[in-house]
């Protein structure tokens, strides 16, 4: 029996869990590094759903699609209201 015919065990790297907050931060950073206006681009994506607003740099486009847009918006609203309460 050749090496390739034996039963093998693969260790698959677990996919990292990202929160909405992590995703927004990472996407913001990637857009900034590519010279875009991050706020305008993220707003454009949230409004239209077109991922072309988000750069592929640092896998930002893949990341932003891990959550639905309403989840990202909910995080933004929640964060804003918490900040307001603390002010």
């Amino acid at each position: 029996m050749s090496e390739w015919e034996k039963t093998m065990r693969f260790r698959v790297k677990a996919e990292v869990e990202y929160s909405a907050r992590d995703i927004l931060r990472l996407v913001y950073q990637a857009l900034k590094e590519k010279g875009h206006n991050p706020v305008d681009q993220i707003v454009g994506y949230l409004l239209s759903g077109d991922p072309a607003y988000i750069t592929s740099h640092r896998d930002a486009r893949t990341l932003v699609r891990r959550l639905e847009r309403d989840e990202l918006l909910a995080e933004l609203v929640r964060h804003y209201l918490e900040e307001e309460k603390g002010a």
Partner: protein
Amino acid sequence: MVRATTGTLGEFEGLDPLVEPVPGRGWDVLAVWGGARLAGTIPVSAAKNAVLPILAASLLADGPTVLRGVPDLEDVRTMCRLLTELGCEVVWQPSRTLRIQNRGLQVHEAPYELVRLMRASFLVMGPLLARAGRAKTALPGGCAIGSRPIDLHLKGFAALGARMEFAHGRIQVEGRGLSGARIYLDFPSVTATENIMMAACLARGTTLIENAAQEPEVVDLAGYLNAAGGRVRGAGTDVVRVEGVDALTGCEYQVIPDRIEAGTFMLAAAMTGGNIRLENVVPEHLKAVVAKLREAGAEVAEESDTSLRVRGPIRPRAVDIKTLPFPGFPTDLQAPAMAMLTRAEGTSIVTETVFENRFLHVDELKRMGADIRIEGRSAIVRGVERLTGAPVRATDLRAGACLVLAGLMAEGITEITGVQHIDRGYADFVGKLQRVGARVERGTMA
């Protein structure tokens, strides 16, 4: 008799591609041998329908515009000639990069010889009006797929404060110091949305375009305008807001992938029982196509955020298709999709709601043995066991792609004339098909 050549139609300016043969060579023809299962990888080119408006928008910028990955298409060459006529320096650089520098607009008229070749020439009207305060052109040409009035463009220009004059088949638009306005489009026209966006970029105040087109190409134009210093918000939704700025600088920009080219190859894979990986795609732009292909029995897998794989069934199932503005099923893929349905199991209904004269490919498909009946804006397609190769004629760009795809699954050889239409919108179409195993050759016929 087909004879292979390597020439392109770029050398033969000013010909009517439908009726005039290539001088000294005869008619350009594509010969397609049916029966191959397509397999391999195809890198998708940048979108023609995004590149053309961005090229027109470069007239607005003071500094240079550098576009990367520009596709080698007849329409792109036509637009470059138009920009040169208007006073721009247009230089091709390595890796399909195009550099455009506005040298000051000396001419404000788009010549009839170029406008009649390509409808998108009309897109220079908005930038010319914004930059020079006046613009003149003949009524636009393009594919013969029905009446596509320009009244929505003119309505938008008028709302911004421009005056119109029609005489001798030409339109003159004049208006210095345009002002922002609220404009409702009766229909979400892509080119009207784009033309108004460009004109409003240098207007005083804010312009709201309501019932705007939501196509990805509109988003890409907004992306270019913003990268060049403009302020366009809401592109990709039905309300686009443009805040006028004093000037646009140049910028470097990468155009989005061509969703229609991607969709065409996805259909080719599905209808030949093939297995094709498409690279450089935005899967979200293809949702309607993916849904219909899955309904027809194809497997479509998103392999990354820029690649898709399509595996075709042995024989596709019949599906109903209705064309709609984005995010609906694109009218530009109606003809290629119909090619697939001619051999599907069952009866499909294809309804065209965007253009009224877009079934010109039906008679040609019938020559190959397809069973199609037109009823108003719908085509009833009864799938047949087999198509047979025949001499056919492409009447427009997407009809040309449709006939090539039909030829790929037909028995024998299909000879297609009117190939020039395909050159307008598909970069290296034959080469890409050959690389995934299709037997397609270009030649001339005396």
